[in-house]
């Protein structure tokens, strides 16, 4: 999914056009997850655990929706369209030092790994939180009753450790975004806000937007699933 981009290519600058790259649900999910993780972090550090739970549920909803959207969503959100094998990834890595490599419609081969690792780590943080036991029993996860005290404390520690891992992964993600902005002159943040990217006219690929009803249907199912989890399956 490569299209000629703006990465330092002055000749192409005259024939730039704006291309739609990200659909609204993908962008909304990205930024809601950013906010949810931020709130989880702050509330966890400041002992506001009731709100920590709510933010965690929002994060769970977004992660599940993003996975769902990765199968039935718009073309750039679909895993099948951006997850690549090791060969493609290594090939891409070898071109990383070049400033005028073509921009990718959607995630590049390396960004795909970032998406998968971020989603997997965030999901692991949330799942361990669901089973975590608060030693004072005030703010245990909703599924903590399915584990005993010691197991629940094990989940609590891993919840904390995995969040530290998530912070490292996020830091790497931000470094990569900064690298693309400073070195390759590609503003990935702006694209994730506006959904658009400037590319050369020669581009043949277009974003295939999935219908809204598909997102709405997934939202209903995922909302129900998250609600059931929050009740500890005692609904």
């Amino acid at each position, binding site marked *: 999914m490569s299209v000629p981009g703006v990465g330092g290519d002055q000749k192409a600058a005259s024939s730039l056009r704006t291309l739609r790259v990200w659909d609204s649900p993908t962008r909304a999910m990205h930024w809601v997850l950013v906010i949810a993780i931020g709130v989880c972090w702050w509330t966890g550090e400041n002992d506001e655990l009731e709100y920590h739970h709510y933010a965690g549920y929002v994060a769970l909803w977004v992660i599940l929706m993003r996975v769902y959207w990765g199968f039935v969503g718009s073309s750039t959100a679909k895993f099948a369209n951006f997850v690549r094998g090791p060969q493609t990834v290594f090939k891409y890595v070898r071109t990383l030092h070049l400033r005028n490599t073509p921009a990718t419609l959607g995630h590049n081969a390396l960004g795909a790994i970032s998406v998968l690792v971020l989603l997997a780590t965030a999901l692991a943080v949330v799942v361990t939180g669901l089973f975590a036991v608060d030693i004072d029993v*005030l703010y245990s996860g909703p599924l903590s009753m399915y584990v005993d*005290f*010691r197991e629940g404390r094990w989940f*609590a*520690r891993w919840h904390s450790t995995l969040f530290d891992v998530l912070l490292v992964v996020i830091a790497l993600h931000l470094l990569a975004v900064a690298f693309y902005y400073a070195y390759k002159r590609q503003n990935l943040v702006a694209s994730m806000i506006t959904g658009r990217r400037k590319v050369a006219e020669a581009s043949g690929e277009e974003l295939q937007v999935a219908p809204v009803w598909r997102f709405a249907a997934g939202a209903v199912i995922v909302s129900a699933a998250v609600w059931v989890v929050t009740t*500890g399956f005692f609904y």
Partner: protein
Amino acid sequence: MPSSVFTRVAGIALVLSVTATAIVTAAPADVAMIKSRQDKLRDMGSALKQIDDELKRRSPDWDNVIQPNVQILHDRSPFLQKWFPKGSGPEAGAKTYALPAIWQKGDDFAKHARGMIAEAAKLEQVFAKKDASELRAQVIALGKTCKGCHDDYRSPDYEKDAEQ
């Protein structure tokens, strides 16, 4: 060896032997106390959890699950303060999350302990009514007394330590 030097050497040897004896004799008891109180406090946390978990069920098992755990909390809480004798802090040499503030602010720690004893006693009284929502509220009240103490007198390292 001149007598003054001999006296000095003998004095140092005596001090060292007394110190060594103190370490050898005092430390195991303090270390055992630390281990013992950690086990007991973990049991109490587990008891509170089991009550809380059971109360989430549609038909809680009052006699086989809730009652014995209420008993554990009620019976053990009066001994809370005794589990923290002087010398059983970090200076004992065993891993403990008990902060020196426990002994530095003994009166405040005792106040926390009395609060917990009162709430544990109330837990038993409320249990007798077998009203799930009322008992749940009391579980939370008791949990808050645990948290009050943990916030002030337990090291934050506890949350991340794999050996707790």
